[in-house]
């Protein structure tokens, strides 16, 4: 796996989007860039287009133009995504899809639309009244509307049977991801978080049909591994659902002595907890899945359940020793959550550490030593207790 894994690493960092170009050349299909949280990817896919994750510029893109459009206090992913547009890296895309996840992302949709009128930006409003029996039906209507706008780009009309097939294709990928996550939780020595992350990220850049075999092979390979567990603490990580930290930062968390046993990296792209049931209207099935079975990330405000409950449940179910909140700098929804998480973690006596990152960071020493100190104190407390 190592060799292949290295090439995947390059692919996910490469803003020439090699897997996407290869898919385009092979199929002649169109590509839709999706802002990464709760994108209803099945809809463009059902129209014969490839939805790909727009995760900003990572740490390889210098911001030269976008700074004059978005201020210093706006998160990096918004600015570097716009920068990708200015430097022509988004030319591989035929359209964009944004959703109502936060105020900067919403305004970015407008700014993109004005600066790049040749590339239509479809905006999806995600429902927020989860107590209402109308929410799922509203979502279905909204997705049909988005399908019409996307259909204009694709040059064809949405059909229920195509959407049902798209749901099956993505469900397969998500199911494999759930199994990989379960394996990492039960035996974290068998698959590292940086490997798992790389695979998940790859899934945002490929046709589900093409990426599924890669995930299957990775799962089979990981199951066979016979590494011995290291003396590390088990950690649940939260806060990185939208802007992504550099892969090197994820590696340094592991090297600092953590087994990450659950995380929300790219969770907005693998948001369903269970396979989506389609009985009849597939748009309604997607609506129901979002309203009743998707992970409760920062941009979703479901008053039926306290926000921190999911994090505490995950920490308990994954037998975590601690929680690390790894939030994107200037990510307002994520940072709001921290206040609620902190209170709940303290009430449940779960130790935690709060860290902030930016996608374009280069130096990880400070974070690494903070994590090392945290891990040491935990291991010391554990040793003293036993």
């Amino acid at each position, binding site marked *: 796996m190592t060799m292949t894994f290295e090439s995947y690493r390059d692919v996910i960092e490469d803003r020439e989007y090699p897997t996407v170009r290869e898919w385009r050349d092979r199929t002649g299909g169109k590509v839709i860039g999706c802002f990464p949280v709760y994108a209803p990817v099945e809809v463009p896919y059902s129209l014969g287009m490839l939805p790909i994750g727009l995760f900003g510029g990572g740490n390889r893109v210098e911001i030269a133009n976008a700074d004059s459009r978005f201020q210093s206090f706006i998160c990096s992913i918004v600015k570097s995504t716009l920068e990708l547009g200015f430097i022509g890296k988004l030319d591989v895309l035929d359209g964009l899809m944004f959703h109502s996840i936060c105020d900067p992302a919403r*305004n970015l949709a407008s700014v993109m639309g004005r600066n790049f009128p040749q590339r239509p930006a479809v905006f999806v*409003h995600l429902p927020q009244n989860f107590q209402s029996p109308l929410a799922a039906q*509203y979502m279905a209507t909204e997705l049909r509307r988005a399908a019409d706008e996307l259909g204009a780009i694709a040059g064809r009309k949405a059909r229920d049977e195509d959407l049902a097939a798209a749901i099956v294709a993505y469900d397969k990928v998500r199911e494999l991801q759930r199994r990989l996550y379960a394996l990492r939780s039960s035996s974290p020595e068998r698959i590292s978080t940086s490997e798992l992350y790389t695979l998940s990220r790859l899934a945002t850049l490929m046709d589900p049909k093409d990426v599924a075999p890669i995930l299957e092979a990775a799962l089979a390979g990981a199951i066979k591994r016979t590494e011995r567990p290291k003396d590390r603490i088990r950690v649940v990580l939260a806060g990185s659902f939208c802007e992504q930290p550099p892969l090197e930062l994820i590696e340094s968390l592991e090297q600092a002595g953590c087994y990450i046993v659950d995380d929300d990296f790219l969770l907005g792209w693998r948001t369903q907890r269970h396979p989506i049931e389609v009985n009849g209207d597939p748009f309604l099935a997607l609506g129901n899945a979002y309203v009743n079975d998707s992970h409760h990330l920062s941009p979703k405000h479901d008053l039926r359940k306290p926000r921190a409950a999911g994090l505490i449940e995950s920490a308990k179910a994954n037998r975590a020793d601690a929680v690390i909140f790894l939030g994107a700098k200037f990510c307002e929804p994520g940072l709001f959550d921290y206040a609620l998480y902190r209170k709940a973690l303290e009430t449940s006596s779960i130790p935690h550490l709060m860290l902030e990152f930016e996608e374009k960071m280069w130096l990880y020493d400070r974070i690494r030593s903070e994590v090392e100190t945290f891990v040491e104190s935990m291991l010391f407390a554990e040793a003293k207790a036993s």
Partner: protein
Amino acid sequence: MTPATTATPTKKPAADAKPAAPAIKYQGTVHELQKQLMSKYYADLTSIAEGGPGRSAQLLIAGNPVEVLRTFDMIPVFPEINALQLAVRKNSLPLIQKAEELGYSTDNCAYVKADIGMWENGGKTPFATIPKPDVLVCNYVGCNVYLNWFEHLAEKVGSPAINIDIPFMRTKDGQPAEGDVEYVVAQLKELVKLLEKVTGMPFDEDKFVKIVERSSRVGQLWSQIRDLTKKRPTPYDAYFDSVTMMAPLYCLRGTEEAVDFFERTLEEMTAKVERGEGALPDGEKFRIVIEGPPPWPFLRVFRDMFSRWGAVAVASTYATVGGIWEFGFHHDPAHPFESVAKHMIEANLCNRSMLQRYDQIWRYAQEWSADALVIHSVKSCRLFSAGQGDMREHFVHDRDLPTLLIESDLEDPRYFSQAQLRNRIDAFFEALEQRRITGGKAA
């Protein structure tokens, strides 16, 4: 756009000149009346907090559905107004810091932090004690922070909470999508059911219609008042003075007091127009549009930075956060639920896209004859600020409208740098003056 040539060039204020603060009297009888109304409003809230009769509901400014709450005799409480009152009185910083100690970030909207700090103090403020609300109604009209705010409040104060989901204005034709109005009406009816439960009162449709009728009247009066700033000189400042009128517009809309207030305001402003009296005693030299919320902790100082140049706002986007009435929208008593829904979806700034905001500003620049645009970018409010650099690019390059972008905050005094702001503002008006003399472009 070519600047108007009727005004004479301003005498440049000496660099070390003190702002003419004590000399300028901004207040009129409208301000006095507003103060009285708001004191009574806050006294009523304090009385509820102290165990007196009555009920309150918390909701948010953008496209607020006060009409529904008023039908159940609930006093609407807007946490933004509480937060800004705290800021104006210079009470916000310790409360913000208290919230930060609880884990809120320096990058979170400071309105929310001041409010959380206020609840840590049991709702006590120098102007009122805010009662624990009987219900939290999060009218999610554009601002995603609203959702965070009420989610946190629901945990903190423990009142029953509901989100009213308002679909964003997202279609290509700039209209609500098919089914949006019906979706919101259905949710408003769900809200009615919740309020029946909370208050034990049955919904009184006739009363609702009457309240919507009064809102309609208030909206019409308000749009007439907004129209008066098209006059030269403008009788009042559409940014700094509009905020005086916004509290009654939101807290009291739907009541007789509000109708009376706006009738008297229209009268006073019309009389000013007839007398040829402007907002500034020394005359109006530059007509500007201001975009973005004001820096509440330094409102007076900020205003003086413009007044000393004879610059007066003839329109502002901030005044349309709660509703845009000046382009023809009014509540419709014949379709009360639908019109409340339309107000929430399309007739307010917050639920409209950035590009619709650009159009709104351009309309102001043209129809209200403005010389320039001033963008006050606030760190707290990303709804307003995210992307304002693009707005500046648009107005400078596509519209040739002189545009100034300055930064501070609406609630957190730590982000207000007086000397820096003043330098930027002075340089801008100096250039504008130059442009007027030469007929060329601003530097």
